[in-house]
Every structure is written in C-alpha cells, then in structure tokens.
C-alpha cells in the first residue's frame, strides 16, 4: 500500500476529484435555486438522464459538442417542466412526483437511445472536449495539473459557484426565490407571483441538471449507457442539504464526493487488494453519512415541500 501513496498518486487523485465533482456540483447548484424556492425536486436523477441522452444525441448528430451541451440543457428544462407542473400547478406530493419522474426518464432514455441508434454491437461514441490548459497557472507543478488542466465545462461549472451566490444573495430575483420558499403567503401579498417564481426556479434547476447529465455523456464518458447517471442526482440533492443550501458549501460538498469517486477509480487502477464492487459503494455510503451528519443541522426553507394555494390558510 505504501508504494502507491506517492506524489503522482495524489496529483491524479485530486485532479480526478475536481473532474468528478463537476457532474455533482452542476445539478447541486441548480437545486439550490429550486429548493430555496421551496420545491424538493427528487426528479433530478431523471432530469440528468434526459440531459445525458439528449446532449449525447445532439453532439452525435451535429458533431458539435456545444450544440450537444445546449440540447442537454434544453432537455433538462423541458423535462423539469413536468415536475414544475405536477408540484406547483397540480400541487402533487413532491416526493412521489420526483420518484415518478425518475421512473419515466429511465424508460424514455433507453427508448430514445434505441430509436436513434438501433441495436449495435459497439456503443456509439463521440470525441470529447479537449482539456484546456490555462496559461501560466497550468504550468505550476502539481497545482497546475490538479486545477488548471481540465476541459472547459469543468471551469465553467466552478465559475457558476460565485455567480449562483451572487444571484441568490444580491439580486431581486434571488430575494424573490427565498421569499417564496420561506413565506409564500407574505410574498404573494407583496405582489410576487409565487407560482411563476417557483416555475422559474424549477426550470433553472432543470437546466443545470440537464447540463450535468450532458457533461457525463459528452465530456466524461463520451458514450451513453442506461446507468450513466448512477445516482448522481440523488447525491446532488443530498449535497444541497449537506451544504445548507449555500453554493460555496455545495462546492466543497461536491468535491468531497468527487474525491470519493476519484479515490475509488485510482485505487482500482492501482489494483489494491479491495474488490472493485466494494470500492464502487464508496460514494453511496458517503451520501448516507453526509445526510446523517447534515440533516439535523440544516435549516430548511420554511415552506419546503409545501404547495402554495391562495385559497387555503
């Protein structure tokens, strides 16, 4: 065990941590908007899957990765519209609606894949984004490799952290989101359209989740499988709770999970004596542990999961 714990091991481990934090951080940032507005969207997993398949098809058909990425974002928004309709207009139980969304997505995604690509011996593949080395910073030994030699979507995701913080804390839109999540009745009496703000918050969350899904197929695995999201949506939801709905904390939370996934991959690559299937459990175990640590302390928005109606009081 001692021989593998050298500097190269840690450099590739931490670089992997940054890369693998991305598909969790993206949906988590989006869910901060949604959950702050009082909607628990457990359908993120399914939304990511729709983003993954549509992003992949978009990139495959046009051979343009950015177009694919856009397709993923749009697919996420359109799909989350169903969640918004169920939870805001129909005032459905958000937990059941989320579970239903995930079941529908797993069927739809495999159906669409089959429809577009048919049955083939080898899975369809694409050439992904090249890694983009940031000048000067990328040349710093170790630090450069860890932080500044990733593909462009990784940088964009991390830039979204301060942007998300700014929008939520420093703009009227952010204020409105928090208002409808904390006290929709008061927000309504101040002339804020509760349903509209909540719809927009779910759609923003869907866009981020779709982007996260597309990242998996066009910027990480470069292919689509039914298991491509593999619980990342649920992990993102627990990262949001773990982070008490704060973007910066969500970044650290996502990095923690990135570290667990990267560690799992690195250890497998080094052929440590632990069977791969047991290592693969690591991120899921960590999610449970994170929820256990955070759930008691997290301060949930007061109107969390509660539908709003003008008629009731």
């Amino acid at each position: 065990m001692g021989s593998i714990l050298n500097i190269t091991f840690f450099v590739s481990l931490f670089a992997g941590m940054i890369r693998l934090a991305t598909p969790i951080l993206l949906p988590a940032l989006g869910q901060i908007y949604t959950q702050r507005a009082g909607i628990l969207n457990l359908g993120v997993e399914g939304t990511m899957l729709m983003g993954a398949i549509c992003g992949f098809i978009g990139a495959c058909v046009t051979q343009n990765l950015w177009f694919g990425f856009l397709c993923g974002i749009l697919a996420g928004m359109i799909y989350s519209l169903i969640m918004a309709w169920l939870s805001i207009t129909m005032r459905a139980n958000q937990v059941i609606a989320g579970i239903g969304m995930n079941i529908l997505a797993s069927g739809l995604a495999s159906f669409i894949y089959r429809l577009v690509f048919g049955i083939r011996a080898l899975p369809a593949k694409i050439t992904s984004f090249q890694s983009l080395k940031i000048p000067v910073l990328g040349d710093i030994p170790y630090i450069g490799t860890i932080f500044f030699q990733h593909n462009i979507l990784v940088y964009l995701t991390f830039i979204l952290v301060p942007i998300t913080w700014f929008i939520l804390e420093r703009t009227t839109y952010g204020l409105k989101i928090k208002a409808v999540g904390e006290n929709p009745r008061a927000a309504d009496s101040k002339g804020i359209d509760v349903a509209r703000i909540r719809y927009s918050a779910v759609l923003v969350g869907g866009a981020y989740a779709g982007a996260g899904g597309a990242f998996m197929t066009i910027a990480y695995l470069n292919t689509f499988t039914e298991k491509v999201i593999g619980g990342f949506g649920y992990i993102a939801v627990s990262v949001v709770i773990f982070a008490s709905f704060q973007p910066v904390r969500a970044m650290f939370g996502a990095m923690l999970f990135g570290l667990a996934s990267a560690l799992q991959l690195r250890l497998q690559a080094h052929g440590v004596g632990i069977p791969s299937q047991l290592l693969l459990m690591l991120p899921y175990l960590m999610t449970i542990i994170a929820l256990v640590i955070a759930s008691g302390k997290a301060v949930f928005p007061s109107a969390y999961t509660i539908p709003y109606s003008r008629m009731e009081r």
Partner: protein
Amino acid sequence: MNEKTRKTAINAFGTICMILIALILGGILVYLTGNSPFEAYGAMLRGAFSSPQRISELFVKLIPILLMAFGVSIAYKAQLWNIGAEGQFIMSSIAATAVALYINIPIPVRFILSFIASLAAGALYAGLAGYLRNRFGANEVITTMMLNSIASYFLMYLVNGPMQDPTTDLSQSPLVPESMFFARLIGNYRLHIGIFILLAVTIMMCFFWKSSVGYRINLIGQGEMVATYAGINVKQTVMTTMMISGAFAGLAGWIETFGIQHRILDGIAADYGNISTIIALLGSLNVYGIIASACFFSVLLCGGASMQRMTEVPYSVVNVIQGLIIILVIARNMFADRLPQVSHKEKKG
C-alpha cells in the same frame, strides 16, 4: 349505492382511463419505431395468454411484484417513501442463498432458518433507513435509494467473488441444494407452491388495515401531530412500518430464490423495486386496487418480453408505458384531492 362504493367506482374508472391513455401514448411510440401498434399489443396479449405455460408465467411474475407492492404500500400509507424494495429484495435473496449453501444443518431446519434470515435481512435493511430517519432526520427516499445501489454492488461483489460458482465464469452463485427447491404445481411449468404463500399474504392484507398495527401506521400517515395526539409513539411506529415493509420484500426475495432462480445472480431484482412503487400508487394504496394493478403489470411485463421477441418493437416501450402510468396517476390523484377541497371552500363562501 352508498358514498364509499360510488367513490371506489369512480376511482377504478379513473385508473382504467389512466392505463388506457398510457397505452395509447405507448402505441404512438411504437408507431414512431416504424411498427404497427395493433400488432405490438396483439403480440403482447398473445405472449401473455396464448398457452398454459405462458399463463403459468403470469403467476410466476405476479408473486414478487404483488408482495413487494403490498410492502411498499404499507410504508407509503404512513408517508414513508421507501423506494428501497429492490435493495431489501437483494439482501434477502443473498441471506436465503447463503443459509442454503453454507449452513450445514438438516434441510428442513435449514429451510426454516433461511426463511427467518430472509425476512430479517429485508426488515433490517429497511429498518436501517427508518433508524437513520428517526435518529438523524435523514430523508428516507435518498437513503433507501443509496442502499439500493449499495446492495446491488454487494451482490455483484459476492457473485464475482466469495460466492461465485467455481464451475463457471458467470456472475452467479452455485445452485442451492435441490431438496430445497419449491415444488412445482403443474408438470414442467415454473409455477410453484410460492403462489399459496402469496394467497395467504393477500388474504392477510385484506384485514391488515383493520388490525391495531395497521391502524397506527395509517395514523402516522395523517401527520405526526395527529398521531402524537392519538397517543402513538411515532418513532417506534416508523421503525415498525419500515421493517414490515422490508419484510415483504424479504419474503419476495426468499420465494424468488427457492422458487425460480435457485441461486443468486447479478440483476436478480429485475427492476422489481420501481415496478412495486408504480403498482402501489396505481392501486391508490388500496389492497384490491393493488391486486388489480399487479395483475395488469404481470401481463404488461410478460407480454412485453414476448413482444420484443416476436416483433421489432423494443422492450423499452414497456418501460415508457410504466413511466407514463405513474405520472398520469400522480396527476389524477391530485385532481381527486383537489376537487372536493374547492367545492368545500365554495360552500363556505
């Protein structure tokens, strides 16, 4: 006709409409794949009913999905969203197989021990999520989902490692002793005596909600305040509910192990977790509704598999139909809940 029967009739009618809409939308998807929807559904029906052997398969399928749907419905009634039936099923079949393979005691005793171990595995695995919710407030949807992933990786580890059948490269364990196989009922058909266990459980379920434990579970579903005022220990009831719910999945795992698979193998749970959730919600968490829904799903799953073999239509159409049904049911339930509320307010005003 009294109010209750009228409501049930409206409910049943609504459910049938939902299924029809989902089937029509599914038909459109079939058309998109360049096939005839009528041919596809025809193949599905023929695949489900055209021979005694196929009808036997319908019952074989019905056993696990109905048992697991009963199990999750008990948790859902208490507003505990246990989506971990799949993981509980896996843990139980692992326990059943491990006892059958490695504990060298007389077969009848071993059989009973495997039964206890299976139910305990399912109950404890679900109970773990209940404990985490009670003690730490961890959302049971996420924990049960994570426990599903952990269980399937654990199964993969076992069937590729310590429990792998040494005579093959396949991801499966050796067969359990043949004297532990469930007896088959009719000739070579796979239908086995597990169907009687299902029958017994179904009869028991008809009285479950009238029992004292059923009553308490129902009360915590009305909200923690209501239950506390009624003098119910909420945390204890959450644990009981989750464990009963898990034990049902455990029972399904035990029956599947000795009745059908006779071993554990990768993918043994075959999406039963999601399917049981859909069945429970489609049946409005009502015992008779669940029975009817499970029968429908048994036809859909068995027929869907032969439809894929006989036509060009991919099986994923069946998955989409499942998904559409659940979304429609969620939307329908809201309509049903909303309408009386509105009229009630209007009367007041």
